[in-house]
């Protein structure tokens, strides 16, 4: 999955309308928590803890997380 594809996927999952890039601030409410946990478990095979979720601010943070876990 390319960075562009990842951003599109996140936009779809979190119902983000309009343009978004790595600096886009994401609103992580209780439903977004569940959506992200499922997405990371299903596609990247690792667990997002509540502590990690609390630290996420932007789409770039979501991408950085994958880089740190998988490289």
């Amino acid at each position: 999955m390319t960075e562009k594809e990842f951003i599109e996927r996140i936009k779809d999952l979190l119902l983000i309308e309009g343009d978004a890039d790595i600096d886009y601030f994401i609103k992580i409410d209780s439903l977004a928590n569940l959506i992200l946990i499922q997405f990371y478990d299903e596609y990247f095979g690792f667990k997002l803890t509540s502590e990690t979720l609390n630290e996420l601010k932007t789409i770039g943070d979501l991408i950085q997380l994958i880089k740190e876990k998988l490289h």
Partner: protein
Amino acid sequence: MFDISIYLPEKILTNENLKLELPDWDYLKIQDKIGIRQRHIVGASETALDLAYLAAEKIVNKKNREYIDFIIFCTQSPDYFLPTTACILQDKLGLPTNAGALDFNLGCSGFIYGLALVKGLLTAGISENLLLITAETYTKHINRKDVANRAIFGDAAAAALINKHDQSKIGEFTLGTDGRGKDNLIIQNGGTRNAYDLYAQEIEYGNGNYYTKNDLYMNGPEIFNFTIENVPPLIKKNLDANKLSISDIDYFIFHQANQFMLEYLRRKIGIPTEKFCIDLAETGNTVSCTIPIALKNAYDRGVIKSRNKVMLVGFGVGYSWGAVTIEI
């Protein structure tokens, strides 16, 4: 199938009602993903005992009353520290004084553990006709500004009348516990460790939800992680214990936590959609009552029939989990 009766409080809280209180709340998104349209909630003076009594009264009648020799009652919202609610129910329902009665405190795994106790009592010959009752009123413990939990939980009671002829239809159990998860679904104050605090501070969590330590707190992400980790192996272990495979099971009834979580578990485990119960739109997550409510609804609607094999799966607060395969 053994008789099950349900009681739901009269008061209904719809998503539209919640939206009036919280204009910024995107209820259509929640409804679509979480799968809950409304939930029944108790009034200020209504308790788990009241709900339990009204559920049990529907299946306790003149004919069977004198034969009921045990009451097992599950709640985490007892009317009193003591005596047990089961003792009060024995009197209110007019059951014989030679009946045994006990309460146990479990949440979403409660119905499975109740069935395990029932099977033990039947197998040991201690009891022949039992009343297993679950009743829960979590909404009494949820902060009004905690919309995440108000949108999920509802109140209810369920009563099941089970006798010695049902014993062989209750298959093998798989149970589990991990108390390290205690802080992730908890009411901290009001017990003997921490007194109820009149001046408890509001704490924000999950982007705009509030609770105090007197209220119910749920760490949704950690609860979801717990289910992802523990429920798939639980299903496998219970299938193995009963020498069955997924294709042998006619229907799976999981604790109805929320539709999003259930759908993901279903896909992860590989259960076909048509064999998987989603039944929480009208009642929400009623804790220990979701499984008996869904079981009764599935039977009444003809989704499951006599001789079908149904796996029941509960998981949640504790952490505590359990599964059993029954024959209808």
